[in-house]
Protein backbone atom coordinates (compact mmCIF):
# COMPACT_ATOMS: atom_id res chain seq x y z
CA UNK A 1 0.00 0.00 0.00
CA UNK A 2 2.81 2.37 0.91
CA UNK A 3 4.18 1.80 -2.55
CA UNK A 4 0.96 2.80 -4.24
CA UNK A 5 0.94 6.13 -2.40
CA UNK A 6 4.62 6.58 -3.22
CA UNK A 7 3.96 6.07 -6.94
CA UNK A 8 1.01 8.45 -6.90
CA UNK A 9 3.03 11.09 -5.05
CA UNK A 10 5.92 10.63 -7.49
CA UNK A 11 3.63 10.95 -10.51
CA UNK A 12 2.01 14.12 -9.20
CA UNK A 13 5.38 15.61 -8.29
CA UNK A 14 6.69 15.04 -11.81
CA UNK A 15 3.53 16.63 -13.17
CA UNK A 16 4.03 19.76 -11.09
CA UNK A 17 7.67 20.10 -12.01
CA UNK A 18 7.38 19.44 -15.73
CA UNK A 19 4.70 22.07 -16.35
CA UNK A 20 5.16 22.76 -20.06
CA UNK A 21 5.37 19.20 -21.39
CA UNK A 22 2.46 18.18 -19.18
CA UNK A 23 0.38 21.07 -20.46
CA UNK A 24 1.19 20.04 -24.03
CA UNK A 25 0.10 16.48 -23.31
CA UNK A 26 -3.12 17.68 -21.67
CA UNK A 27 -3.99 19.93 -24.60
CA UNK A 28 -3.28 17.15 -27.08
CA UNK A 29 -5.50 14.76 -25.19
CA UNK A 30 -8.24 17.40 -24.92
CA UNK A 31 -8.24 18.15 -28.66
CA UNK A 32 -8.20 14.48 -29.60
CA UNK A 33 -10.99 13.59 -27.22
CA UNK A 34 -13.02 16.55 -28.45
CA UNK A 35 -12.66 15.26 -32.00
CA UNK A 36 -13.70 11.79 -30.90
CA UNK A 37 -16.57 13.21 -28.89
CA UNK A 38 -17.97 14.98 -31.93
CA UNK A 39 -17.35 12.15 -34.34
CA UNK A 40 -18.65 9.23 -32.33
CA UNK A 41 -22.27 10.52 -32.23
CA UNK A 42 -22.07 11.66 -35.86
CA UNK A 43 -20.84 8.26 -37.00
CA UNK A 44 -23.44 6.55 -34.88
CA UNK A 45 -26.29 8.59 -36.25
CA UNK A 46 -25.17 8.02 -39.80
CA UNK A 47 -24.83 4.30 -39.40
CA UNK A 48 -28.17 4.22 -37.58
CA UNK A 49 -29.82 5.93 -40.54
CA UNK A 50 -28.33 3.55 -43.08
CA UNK A 51 -29.49 0.61 -41.02
CA UNK A 52 -32.97 2.05 -40.97
CA UNK A 53 -33.00 2.35 -44.74
CA UNK A 54 -31.75 -1.18 -45.17
CA UNK A 55 -34.41 -2.43 -42.80
CA UNK A 56 -37.21 -1.12 -44.92
CA UNK A 57 -36.42 -3.26 -47.91
CA UNK A 58 -38.23 -6.56 -48.12
CA UNK A 59 -39.99 -8.98 -50.40
CA UNK A 60 -43.66 -8.85 -51.30
CA UNK A 61 -45.38 -12.11 -52.01
CA UNK A 62 -48.64 -11.48 -53.88
CA UNK A 63 -51.39 -14.05 -53.61
CA UNK A 64 -54.12 -15.24 -55.99
CA UNK A 65 -57.55 -13.93 -55.09
CA UNK A 66 -58.95 -17.45 -54.75
CA UNK A 67 -56.62 -18.44 -51.93
CA UNK A 68 -58.48 -19.84 -48.95
CA UNK A 69 -57.84 -18.77 -45.40
CA UNK A 70 -56.26 -22.14 -44.65
CA UNK A 71 -53.88 -21.95 -47.58
CA UNK A 72 -52.93 -18.44 -46.59
CA UNK A 73 -52.22 -19.43 -42.99
CA UNK A 74 -50.17 -22.37 -44.19
CA UNK A 75 -48.08 -20.19 -46.48
CA UNK A 76 -47.55 -17.68 -43.68
CA UNK A 77 -46.19 -20.45 -41.48
CA UNK A 78 -43.98 -21.72 -44.30
CA UNK A 79 -42.55 -18.27 -44.90
CA UNK A 80 -41.71 -17.90 -41.23
CA UNK A 81 -39.82 -21.17 -41.39
CA UNK A 82 -37.43 -19.90 -44.08
CA UNK A 83 -33.92 -19.13 -42.88
CA UNK A 84 -32.91 -15.42 -42.62
CA UNK A 85 -36.56 -14.32 -42.45
CA UNK A 86 -37.18 -12.10 -39.45
CA UNK A 87 -40.65 -10.81 -40.06
CA UNK A 88 -43.67 -11.91 -42.05
CA UNK A 89 -46.63 -9.55 -42.23
CA UNK A 90 -49.94 -10.36 -43.88
CA UNK A 91 -51.66 -7.59 -45.80
CA UNK A 92 -55.23 -8.49 -46.78
CA UNK A 93 -57.00 -7.14 -49.84
CA UNK A 94 -58.89 -4.63 -47.71
CA UNK A 95 -55.77 -3.46 -45.93
CA UNK A 96 -54.03 -3.01 -49.29
CA UNK A 97 -56.86 -0.81 -50.48
CA UNK A 98 -56.74 1.15 -47.25
CA UNK A 99 -53.01 1.74 -47.70
CA UNK A 100 -53.55 2.93 -51.27
CA UNK A 101 -56.27 5.35 -50.11
CA UNK A 102 -54.05 6.75 -47.38
CA UNK A 103 -51.22 7.25 -49.79
CA UNK A 104 -53.41 9.04 -52.33
CA UNK A 105 -54.82 11.23 -49.63
CA UNK A 106 -51.36 12.04 -48.33
CA UNK A 107 -50.33 13.11 -51.80
CA UNK A 108 -53.48 15.21 -52.23
CA UNK A 109 -54.66 13.17 -55.14
CA UNK A 110 -58.23 12.30 -56.10
CA UNK A 111 -59.54 9.18 -54.42
CA UNK A 112 -59.54 6.87 -57.44
CA UNK A 113 -60.76 3.94 -55.40
CA UNK A 114 -64.17 5.54 -55.23
CA UNK A 115 -64.55 5.00 -58.96
CA UNK A 116 -64.11 1.27 -58.72
CA UNK A 117 -67.24 -0.42 -60.10
CA UNK A 118 -69.36 -2.04 -57.41
CA UNK A 119 -66.67 -1.39 -54.87
CA UNK A 120 -64.66 -4.22 -56.40
CA UNK A 121 -61.20 -4.44 -54.93
CA UNK A 122 -58.57 -5.11 -57.60
CA UNK A 123 -55.66 -5.23 -55.23
CA UNK A 124 -54.21 -8.63 -54.29
CA UNK A 125 -53.52 -9.80 -50.76
CA UNK A 126 -49.82 -10.14 -49.96
CA UNK A 127 -47.16 -11.10 -47.45
CA UNK A 128 -44.41 -8.62 -46.58
CA UNK A 129 -41.32 -10.70 -45.90
CA UNK A 130 -38.30 -9.08 -44.28
CA UNK A 131 -34.88 -10.71 -44.36
CA UNK A 132 -32.51 -10.28 -41.41
CA UNK A 133 -30.05 -8.55 -43.69
CA UNK A 134 -30.36 -6.94 -47.06
CA UNK A 135 -27.57 -9.15 -48.34
CA UNK A 136 -29.73 -12.24 -47.81
CA UNK A 137 -32.70 -11.05 -49.80
CA UNK A 138 -31.85 -13.19 -52.81
CA UNK A 139 -31.48 -16.32 -50.69
CA UNK A 140 -34.91 -15.76 -49.22
CA UNK A 141 -36.37 -15.16 -52.64
CA UNK A 142 -34.81 -18.36 -53.93
CA UNK A 143 -36.32 -20.21 -51.00
CA UNK A 144 -39.81 -18.94 -51.81
CA UNK A 145 -39.57 -19.64 -55.51
CA UNK A 146 -36.99 -22.37 -56.01
CA UNK A 147 -36.20 -23.12 -59.66
CA UNK A 148 -38.35 -26.02 -60.89
CA UNK A 149 -37.33 -28.90 -63.10
CA UNK A 150 -37.94 -27.03 -66.32
CA UNK A 151 -35.88 -24.09 -65.09
CA UNK A 152 -38.99 -22.01 -64.50
CA UNK A 153 -39.41 -20.71 -60.97
CA UNK A 154 -41.71 -22.99 -58.99
CA UNK A 155 -43.25 -21.28 -55.97
CA UNK A 156 -43.56 -23.23 -52.77
CA UNK A 157 -47.30 -22.70 -52.71
CA UNK A 158 -49.83 -22.63 -55.57
CA UNK A 159 -51.49 -19.53 -54.15
CA UNK A 160 -48.43 -17.39 -54.85
CA UNK A 161 -49.05 -15.25 -57.85
CA UNK A 162 -45.85 -13.28 -57.92
CA UNK A 163 -42.84 -12.37 -55.77
CA UNK A 164 -41.78 -8.78 -56.14
CA UNK A 165 -38.73 -7.27 -54.56
CA UNK A 166 -38.10 -4.04 -56.43
CA UNK A 167 -34.75 -5.49 -57.27
CA UNK A 168 -33.09 -2.36 -58.65
CA UNK A 169 -33.98 -0.37 -55.58
CA UNK A 170 -32.61 -3.05 -53.30
CA UNK A 171 -29.40 -3.31 -55.25
CA UNK A 172 -28.70 0.41 -55.18
CA UNK A 173 -29.51 0.71 -51.50
CA UNK A 174 -27.27 -2.25 -50.90
CA UNK A 175 -24.28 -0.71 -52.64
CA UNK A 176 -24.77 2.78 -51.22
CA UNK A 177 -25.23 1.69 -47.63
CA UNK A 178 -22.32 -0.74 -48.01
CA UNK A 179 -20.09 2.10 -49.20
CA UNK A 180 -21.22 4.34 -46.35
CA UNK A 181 -20.50 1.60 -43.84
CA UNK A 182 -16.94 1.10 -45.11
CA UNK A 183 -16.37 4.82 -45.31
CA UNK A 184 -17.36 5.15 -41.65
CA UNK A 185 -15.13 2.28 -40.59
CA UNK A 186 -12.16 3.77 -42.43
CA UNK A 187 -12.74 7.26 -41.03
CA UNK A 188 -13.07 5.90 -37.49
CA UNK A 189 -9.93 3.80 -37.95
CA UNK A 190 -7.90 6.72 -39.29
CA UNK A 191 -9.08 8.97 -36.50
CA UNK A 192 -8.23 6.45 -33.82
CA UNK A 193 -4.77 5.86 -35.31
CA UNK A 194 -4.14 9.58 -35.58
CA UNK A 195 -5.13 10.20 -31.96
CA UNK A 196 -2.97 7.36 -30.71
CA UNK A 197 0.05 8.63 -32.66
CA UNK A 198 -0.53 12.20 -31.56
CA UNK A 199 -0.85 11.34 -27.88
CA UNK A 200 2.03 8.87 -28.12
CA UNK A 201 4.28 11.49 -29.68
CA UNK A 202 3.52 14.09 -27.05
CA UNK A 203 4.20 11.61 -24.29
CA UNK A 204 7.45 10.58 -25.96
CA UNK A 205 8.60 14.19 -26.04
CA UNK A 206 7.89 14.71 -22.37
CA UNK A 207 9.65 11.48 -21.43
CA UNK A 208 12.58 12.18 -23.75
CA UNK A 209 13.21 15.35 -21.78
CA UNK A 210 13.65 13.18 -18.70
CA UNK A 211 15.61 10.28 -20.21
CA UNK A 212 18.71 11.15 -18.17
CA UNK A 213 16.69 10.89 -15.01
CA UNK A 214 15.40 7.49 -16.06
CA UNK A 215 18.98 6.38 -16.75
CA UNK A 216 20.06 7.44 -13.28
CA UNK A 217 17.16 5.58 -11.70
CA UNK A 218 18.21 2.44 -13.54
CA UNK A 219 21.81 2.81 -12.40
CA UNK A 220 20.93 3.12 -8.72
CA UNK A 221 18.97 -0.10 -8.95
CA UNK A 222 15.35 0.82 -9.64
CA UNK A 223 13.36 -1.91 -11.36
CA UNK A 224 11.57 -1.07 -14.57
CA UNK A 225 8.18 -1.09 -12.93
CA UNK A 226 9.41 1.10 -10.09
CA UNK A 227 10.31 3.71 -12.72
CA UNK A 228 7.28 3.06 -14.89
CA UNK A 229 4.45 3.40 -12.36
CA UNK A 230 4.92 7.12 -11.65
CA UNK A 231 4.99 7.78 -15.38
CA UNK A 232 1.75 5.86 -15.78
CA UNK A 233 0.14 7.78 -12.93
CA UNK A 234 1.25 10.95 -14.67
CA UNK A 235 -0.29 9.75 -17.93
CA UNK A 236 -3.48 8.83 -16.13
CA UNK A 237 -3.79 12.28 -14.58
CA UNK A 238 -2.95 14.04 -17.87
CA UNK A 239 -5.54 11.91 -19.63
CA UNK A 240 -8.16 12.64 -16.99
CA UNK A 241 -7.60 16.41 -17.07
CA UNK A 242 -7.49 16.53 -20.88
CA UNK A 243 -10.57 14.33 -21.10
CA UNK A 244 -12.50 16.47 -18.63
CA UNK A 245 -11.64 19.65 -20.55
CA UNK A 246 -12.88 18.08 -23.76
CA UNK A 247 -16.05 16.83 -22.09
CA UNK A 248 -16.76 20.28 -20.68
CA UNK A 249 -16.44 21.79 -24.17
CA UNK A 250 -18.63 19.03 -25.61
CA UNK A 251 -21.28 19.65 -22.97
CA UNK A 252 -21.32 23.38 -23.72
CA UNK A 253 -21.57 22.62 -27.43
CA UNK A 254 -24.42 20.21 -26.85
CA UNK A 255 -26.34 22.68 -24.70
CA UNK A 256 -25.74 25.69 -26.93
CA UNK A 257 -25.89 24.26 -30.46
CA UNK A 258 -27.15 20.72 -30.79
CA UNK A 259 -30.10 20.70 -28.42
CA UNK A 260 -31.80 23.80 -29.88
CA UNK A 261 -31.27 22.41 -33.38
CA UNK A 262 -32.53 18.94 -32.63
CA UNK A 263 -36.11 20.22 -32.60
CA UNK A 264 -35.90 21.19 -36.23
CA UNK A 265 -33.37 18.76 -37.64
CA UNK A 266 -34.63 15.21 -37.57
CA UNK A 267 -31.25 13.60 -38.06
CA UNK A 268 -29.87 14.81 -34.74
CA UNK A 269 -32.86 13.77 -32.70
CA UNK A 270 -32.97 10.28 -34.11
CA UNK A 271 -33.12 7.75 -31.34
CA UNK A 272 -29.88 5.87 -31.86
CA UNK A 273 -27.53 8.65 -30.82
CA UNK A 274 -25.41 7.57 -27.87
CA UNK A 275 -26.49 8.90 -24.49
CA UNK A 276 -24.34 11.75 -23.26
CA UNK A 277 -23.49 10.12 -19.94
CA UNK A 278 -22.30 6.99 -21.64
CA UNK A 279 -20.28 9.05 -24.11
CA UNK A 280 -18.61 10.91 -21.24
CA UNK A 281 -17.60 7.68 -19.51
CA UNK A 282 -16.34 6.20 -22.76
CA UNK A 283 -14.26 9.26 -23.65
CA UNK A 284 -12.78 9.58 -20.19
CA UNK A 285 -11.83 5.91 -20.13
CA UNK A 286 -10.25 6.15 -23.58
CA UNK A 287 -8.32 9.32 -22.69
CA UNK A 288 -6.95 7.93 -19.42
CA UNK A 289 -6.25 4.49 -20.80
CA UNK A 290 -4.45 5.70 -23.90
CA UNK A 291 -2.33 8.21 -21.96
CA UNK A 292 -1.32 5.79 -19.22
CA UNK A 293 -0.56 2.86 -21.50
CA UNK A 294 1.14 5.21 -23.95
CA UNK A 295 3.43 6.47 -21.18
CA UNK A 296 4.26 2.96 -20.08
CA UNK A 297 5.03 1.76 -23.58
CA UNK A 298 7.03 4.79 -24.63
CA UNK A 299 9.22 4.45 -21.57
CA UNK A 300 10.32 1.01 -22.67
CA UNK A 301 12.98 2.26 -25.04
CA UNK A 302 14.63 4.28 -22.27
CA UNK A 303 14.78 1.36 -19.87
CA UNK A 304 17.33 -0.68 -21.77
CA UNK A 305 20.36 0.37 -19.74
Amino acid sequence: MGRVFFFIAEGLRALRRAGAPSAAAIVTVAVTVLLLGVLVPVLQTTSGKTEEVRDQVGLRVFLHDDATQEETDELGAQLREIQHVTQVEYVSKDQALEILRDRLEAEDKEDLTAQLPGSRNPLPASFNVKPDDLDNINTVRAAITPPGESGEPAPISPIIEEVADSRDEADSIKSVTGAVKWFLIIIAGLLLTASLLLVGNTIRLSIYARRREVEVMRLVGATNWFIRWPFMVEGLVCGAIGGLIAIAVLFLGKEAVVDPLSDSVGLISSGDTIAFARLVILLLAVAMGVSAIGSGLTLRRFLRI
Partner: protein
Amino acid sequence: MAREKTKTRRRGLRRAQRRPEHVTSERRTKPPIVELRRATKIYPGGTVALERVSLRVERGEFVFLVGPTGCGKSTLIKMLIRELEPTEGEILIAGRDIATLPAERIPYLRRRVGTVFQDFKLLPSRTVYDNVAYALQVIGASRAEIKRKVPDALRLVGLADKLSSYPDQLSGGEQQRLSVARAFVNHPPLLLADEPTGNLDPATSIGIMQLLYRINRTGTTVVVVTHDREMVDKMRRRVIALDRGQVVRDQAAGMYAAEESTTEFAARIREEMGVEGPTGLPPSGPKRPYSGPSELFED
Protein backbone atom coordinates in the same frame (compact mmCIF):
# COMPACT_ATOMS: atom_id res chain seq x y z
CA MET B 1 2.68 -7.40 -4.40
CA ALA B 2 5.96 -5.87 -5.40
CA ARG B 3 7.46 -7.04 -2.14
CA GLU B 4 6.44 -10.59 -2.71
CA LYS B 5 8.08 -10.52 -6.10
CA THR B 6 11.26 -9.26 -4.51
CA LYS B 7 11.16 -12.14 -2.09
CA THR B 8 10.80 -14.77 -4.75
CA ARG B 9 13.61 -13.22 -6.73
CA ARG B 10 15.90 -13.21 -3.74
CA ARG B 11 15.04 -16.79 -3.16
CA GLY B 12 15.95 -17.40 -6.79
CA LEU B 13 19.29 -15.76 -6.21
CA ARG B 14 19.90 -17.92 -3.20
CA ARG B 15 19.02 -21.00 -5.13
CA ALA B 16 21.46 -19.98 -7.83
CA GLN B 17 24.14 -19.77 -5.17
CA ARG B 18 23.48 -23.36 -4.20
CA ARG B 19 24.39 -24.63 -7.61
CA PRO B 20 26.68 -27.67 -7.62
CA GLU B 21 29.98 -25.91 -8.36
CA HIS B 22 29.68 -24.01 -5.10
CA VAL B 23 28.45 -26.91 -3.03
CA THR B 24 31.09 -29.33 -4.23
CA SER B 25 33.84 -26.73 -3.90
CA GLU B 26 36.12 -28.49 -1.43
CA ARG B 27 37.67 -25.55 0.27
CA ARG B 28 34.31 -23.85 0.62
CA THR B 29 36.01 -20.49 0.75
CA LYS B 30 34.00 -17.50 -0.31
CA PRO B 31 34.72 -16.47 -3.88
CA PRO B 32 36.42 -13.10 -4.40
CA ILE B 33 33.91 -10.28 -4.42
CA VAL B 34 35.15 -9.07 -7.79
CA GLU B 35 36.85 -11.22 -10.36
CA LEU B 36 37.65 -10.44 -13.96
CA ARG B 37 38.64 -13.27 -16.26
CA ARG B 38 40.29 -12.05 -19.43
CA ALA B 39 37.66 -9.36 -19.77
CA THR B 40 37.85 -7.48 -23.04
CA LYS B 41 35.77 -4.51 -24.09
CA ILE B 42 35.85 -3.23 -27.62
CA TYR B 43 33.53 -0.31 -28.34
CA PRO B 44 31.65 -0.18 -31.60
CA GLY B 45 34.03 1.60 -33.91
CA GLY B 46 36.97 -0.52 -32.82
CA THR B 47 38.29 1.34 -29.77
CA VAL B 48 39.77 -1.21 -27.39
CA ALA B 49 39.00 -0.05 -23.85
CA LEU B 50 40.08 -3.17 -21.98
CA GLU B 51 42.16 -6.04 -23.26
CA ARG B 52 42.14 -9.41 -21.53
CA VAL B 53 42.13 -7.98 -18.03
CA SER B 54 42.21 -10.55 -15.23
CA LEU B 55 42.14 -9.54 -11.61
CA ARG B 56 40.64 -10.47 -8.26
CA VAL B 57 39.52 -8.30 -5.41
CA GLU B 58 38.92 -10.10 -2.11
CA ARG B 59 36.24 -9.19 0.39
CA GLY B 60 37.16 -6.28 2.60
CA GLU B 61 39.95 -4.97 0.40
CA PHE B 62 40.58 -1.32 -0.39
CA VAL B 63 41.80 -1.05 -3.95
CA PHE B 64 42.92 1.86 -6.05
CA LEU B 65 42.53 1.69 -9.78
CA VAL B 66 44.89 4.17 -11.43
CA GLY B 67 46.04 5.05 -14.89
CA PRO B 68 46.02 7.84 -17.46
CA THR B 69 42.79 9.10 -19.02
CA GLY B 70 41.36 6.63 -21.49
CA CYS B 71 43.09 3.60 -20.00
CA GLY B 72 39.79 1.84 -19.36
CA LYS B 73 39.20 2.57 -15.65
CA SER B 74 35.71 3.89 -16.06
CA THR B 75 34.84 1.16 -18.54
CA LEU B 76 35.83 -1.37 -15.92
CA ILE B 77 33.58 0.24 -13.31
CA LYS B 78 30.68 0.39 -15.75
CA MET B 79 31.09 -3.28 -16.51
CA LEU B 80 30.93 -4.18 -12.83
CA ILE B 81 27.35 -2.90 -12.60
CA ARG B 82 26.54 -4.15 -16.08
CA GLU B 83 26.03 -0.71 -17.49
CA LEU B 84 28.30 -2.16 -20.17
CA GLU B 85 28.86 -5.76 -21.06
CA PRO B 86 32.28 -7.21 -21.90
CA THR B 87 32.93 -8.12 -25.50
CA GLU B 88 34.78 -11.19 -24.31
CA GLY B 89 35.72 -12.76 -21.01
CA GLU B 90 33.81 -13.01 -17.75
CA ILE B 91 33.03 -10.68 -14.89
CA LEU B 92 32.15 -12.34 -11.61
CA ILE B 93 30.65 -10.56 -8.65
CA ALA B 94 30.67 -12.71 -5.52
CA GLY B 95 31.42 -15.72 -7.69
CA ARG B 96 28.57 -15.14 -10.08
CA ASP B 97 29.05 -14.35 -13.77
CA ILE B 98 26.89 -11.25 -14.09
CA ALA B 99 26.48 -11.76 -17.83
CA THR B 100 24.17 -14.64 -16.89
CA LEU B 101 21.91 -12.45 -14.76
CA PRO B 102 18.52 -12.10 -16.42
CA ALA B 103 17.66 -8.51 -17.28
CA GLU B 104 15.04 -8.17 -14.55
CA ARG B 105 17.59 -9.04 -11.88
CA ILE B 106 20.14 -6.39 -12.84
CA PRO B 107 18.50 -3.82 -10.53
CA TYR B 108 19.11 -6.17 -7.60
CA LEU B 109 22.81 -6.30 -8.46
CA ARG B 110 23.02 -2.52 -8.66
CA ARG B 111 21.33 -2.07 -5.29
CA ARG B 112 24.06 -4.08 -3.64
CA VAL B 113 26.92 -2.34 -5.40
CA GLY B 114 27.07 1.30 -4.34
CA THR B 115 28.50 3.43 -7.12
CA VAL B 116 29.89 6.95 -7.10
CA PHE B 117 29.71 8.03 -10.72
CA GLN B 118 32.27 10.25 -12.36
CA ASP B 119 29.50 12.56 -13.56
CA PHE B 120 27.60 12.09 -10.24
CA LYS B 121 24.35 11.05 -11.94
CA LEU B 122 22.15 12.92 -9.50
CA LEU B 123 18.44 13.42 -10.07
CA PRO B 124 18.18 17.12 -10.97
CA SER B 125 14.53 17.47 -9.98
CA ARG B 126 15.05 16.16 -6.45
CA THR B 127 16.49 17.77 -3.38
CA VAL B 128 19.69 16.58 -1.72
CA TYR B 129 17.61 14.68 0.81
CA ASP B 130 15.40 13.08 -1.85
CA ASN B 131 18.36 12.06 -3.98
CA VAL B 132 19.75 9.97 -1.15
CA ALA B 133 16.28 8.80 -0.13
CA TYR B 134 15.65 7.50 -3.64
CA ALA B 135 18.36 4.87 -3.25
CA LEU B 136 16.44 3.59 -0.22
CA GLN B 137 12.98 3.94 -1.78
CA VAL B 138 14.18 1.79 -4.63
CA ILE B 139 14.85 -1.12 -2.28
CA GLY B 140 11.49 -0.66 -0.58
CA ALA B 141 12.81 0.80 2.67
CA SER B 142 10.22 1.98 5.17
CA ARG B 143 9.64 5.66 5.77
CA ALA B 144 11.11 5.42 9.24
CA GLU B 145 14.24 3.76 7.93
CA ILE B 146 14.67 6.50 5.33
CA LYS B 147 14.17 9.19 7.95
CA ARG B 148 16.85 7.59 10.07
CA LYS B 149 19.49 6.75 7.48
CA VAL B 150 19.42 9.69 5.09
CA PRO B 151 20.40 12.43 7.57
CA ASP B 152 23.15 10.16 8.89
CA ALA B 153 24.63 9.65 5.46
CA LEU B 154 24.43 13.34 4.66
CA ARG B 155 26.04 14.26 7.99
CA LEU B 156 28.90 11.92 7.15
CA VAL B 157 29.65 13.74 3.91
CA GLY B 158 29.08 17.15 5.47
CA LEU B 159 25.88 18.08 3.67
CA ALA B 160 23.61 18.11 6.73
CA ASP B 161 22.79 21.78 6.21
CA LYS B 162 21.83 21.45 2.53
CA LEU B 163 18.99 18.96 2.82
CA SER B 164 16.53 20.92 0.74
CA SER B 165 18.91 22.28 -1.90
CA TYR B 166 18.71 21.02 -5.46
CA PRO B 167 21.79 19.54 -7.15
CA ASP B 168 22.24 22.53 -9.46
CA GLN B 169 22.50 24.77 -6.39
CA LEU B 170 25.48 22.79 -5.12
CA SER B 171 29.15 23.21 -5.96
CA GLY B 172 30.95 20.46 -7.86
CA GLY B 173 32.48 19.14 -4.68
CA GLU B 174 29.16 19.11 -2.87
CA GLN B 175 27.53 17.20 -5.72
CA GLN B 176 30.32 14.68 -5.51
CA ARG B 177 29.83 14.23 -1.79
CA LEU B 178 26.11 13.84 -2.36
CA SER B 179 26.90 11.11 -4.87
CA VAL B 180 29.07 9.39 -2.25
CA ALA B 181 26.30 9.63 0.33
CA ARG B 182 23.82 8.03 -2.03
CA ALA B 183 26.26 5.25 -2.89
CA PHE B 184 26.73 4.03 0.66
CA VAL B 185 23.43 4.92 2.31
CA ASN B 186 22.18 1.35 2.16
CA HIS B 187 25.50 -0.10 3.27
CA PRO B 188 26.41 -2.04 0.17
CA PRO B 189 28.97 -4.84 0.44
CA LEU B 190 30.84 -3.37 -2.51
CA LEU B 191 31.44 0.31 -3.13
CA LEU B 192 32.76 1.55 -6.45
CA ALA B 193 33.93 5.13 -6.68
CA ASP B 194 34.83 6.63 -10.05
CA GLU B 195 37.02 9.70 -9.38
CA PRO B 196 35.37 10.53 -6.06
CA THR B 197 37.86 13.32 -5.40
CA GLY B 198 38.18 14.58 -8.96
CA ASN B 199 36.78 18.03 -8.34
CA LEU B 200 37.70 18.53 -4.73
CA ASP B 201 40.31 20.62 -2.98
CA PRO B 202 42.96 18.61 -1.07
CA ALA B 203 41.29 19.13 2.30
CA THR B 204 37.92 17.83 1.15
CA SER B 205 39.60 15.04 -0.82
CA ILE B 206 41.16 13.80 2.37
CA GLY B 207 37.76 14.01 4.01
CA ILE B 208 36.24 11.81 1.32
CA MET B 209 39.12 9.36 1.48
CA GLN B 210 38.76 9.24 5.24
CA LEU B 211 35.09 8.49 4.73
CA LEU B 212 35.81 5.72 2.23
CA TYR B 213 38.41 4.32 4.58
CA ARG B 214 35.93 4.36 7.42
CA ILE B 215 33.40 2.54 5.27
CA ASN B 216 36.06 0.03 4.28
CA ARG B 217 36.95 -0.66 7.90
CA THR B 218 33.41 -1.81 8.58
CA GLY B 219 33.88 -4.58 6.04
CA THR B 220 32.80 -3.02 2.76
CA THR B 221 35.05 -3.69 -0.18
CA VAL B 222 35.99 -0.38 -1.76
CA VAL B 223 37.32 0.14 -5.28
CA VAL B 224 38.42 3.70 -6.03
CA VAL B 225 39.27 4.95 -9.48
CA THR B 226 41.53 7.96 -9.44
CA HIS B 227 44.47 9.60 -11.08
CA ASP B 228 45.48 11.43 -7.94
CA ARG B 229 48.93 9.81 -7.66
CA GLU B 230 49.87 11.65 -4.52
CA MET B 231 46.79 10.52 -2.66
CA VAL B 232 47.30 6.93 -3.76
CA ASP B 233 50.90 6.90 -2.59
CA LYS B 234 49.96 8.28 0.80
CA MET B 235 47.12 5.85 1.39
CA ARG B 236 49.36 2.78 1.14
CA ARG B 237 46.71 0.44 -0.16
CA ARG B 238 46.64 -2.01 -3.01
CA VAL B 239 47.09 -0.26 -6.35
CA ILE B 240 46.14 -1.66 -9.72
CA ALA B 241 47.49 0.39 -12.60
CA LEU B 242 45.92 0.22 -16.03
CA ASP B 243 47.44 1.48 -19.24
CA ARG B 244 45.91 1.20 -22.67
CA GLY B 245 43.43 -1.36 -21.45
CA GLN B 246 45.87 -3.66 -19.72
CA VAL B 247 46.97 -4.19 -16.13
CA VAL B 248 50.55 -2.93 -15.96
CA ARG B 249 51.04 -3.01 -12.19
CA ASP B 250 49.27 -4.70 -9.29
CA GLN B 251 50.95 -3.65 -6.11
CA ALA B 252 49.40 -5.51 -3.24
CA ALA B 253 49.48 -5.66 0.50
CA GLY B 254 53.24 -5.26 0.98
CA MET B 255 52.96 -1.56 1.41
CA TYR B 256 50.02 -1.63 3.80
CA ALA B 257 50.45 0.48 6.84
CA ALA B 258 49.65 -1.07 10.15
CA GLU B 259 45.99 -0.95 11.10
CA GLU B 260 45.24 2.59 11.97
CA SER B 261 42.08 4.27 13.12
CA THR B 262 40.35 6.65 10.76
CA THR B 263 41.42 9.64 12.77
CA GLU B 264 45.04 8.54 12.78
CA PHE B 265 44.75 7.81 9.09
CA ALA B 266 43.41 11.26 8.31
CA ALA B 267 45.96 12.94 10.49
CA ARG B 268 48.81 11.09 8.78
CA ILE B 269 47.57 11.82 5.27
CA ARG B 270 46.95 15.45 6.13
CA GLU B 271 50.40 15.77 7.51
CA GLU B 272 52.09 14.02 4.61
CA MET B 273 50.21 16.08 2.05
CA GLY B 274 50.83 19.28 3.94
CA VAL B 275 47.18 20.13 4.34
CA GLU B 276 46.06 21.88 7.47
CA GLY B 277 42.75 22.75 9.02
CA PRO B 278 39.32 21.25 8.76
CA THR B 279 38.40 18.88 5.99
CA GLY B 280 34.98 20.32 5.42
CA LEU B 281 33.62 17.26 7.13
CA PRO B 282 32.56 16.93 10.71
CA PRO B 283 35.40 15.66 12.89
CA SER B 284 33.35 13.02 14.59
CA GLY B 285 31.72 10.05 13.04
CA PRO B 286 28.01 9.51 12.62
CA LYS B 287 25.75 9.54 15.63
CA ARG B 288 24.98 5.92 15.09
CA PRO B 289 27.99 3.82 14.32
CA TYR B 290 28.12 2.60 10.73
CA SER B 291 26.76 -0.90 10.97
CA GLY B 292 28.67 -2.59 8.20
CA PRO B 293 27.58 -4.02 4.91
CA SER B 294 24.98 -6.61 4.13
CA GLU B 295 25.84 -9.63 2.05
CA LEU B 296 26.00 -9.13 -1.72
CA PHE B 297 24.06 -12.25 -2.48
CA GLU B 298 22.60 -14.19 0.37
CA ASP B 299 24.43 -17.47 0.79
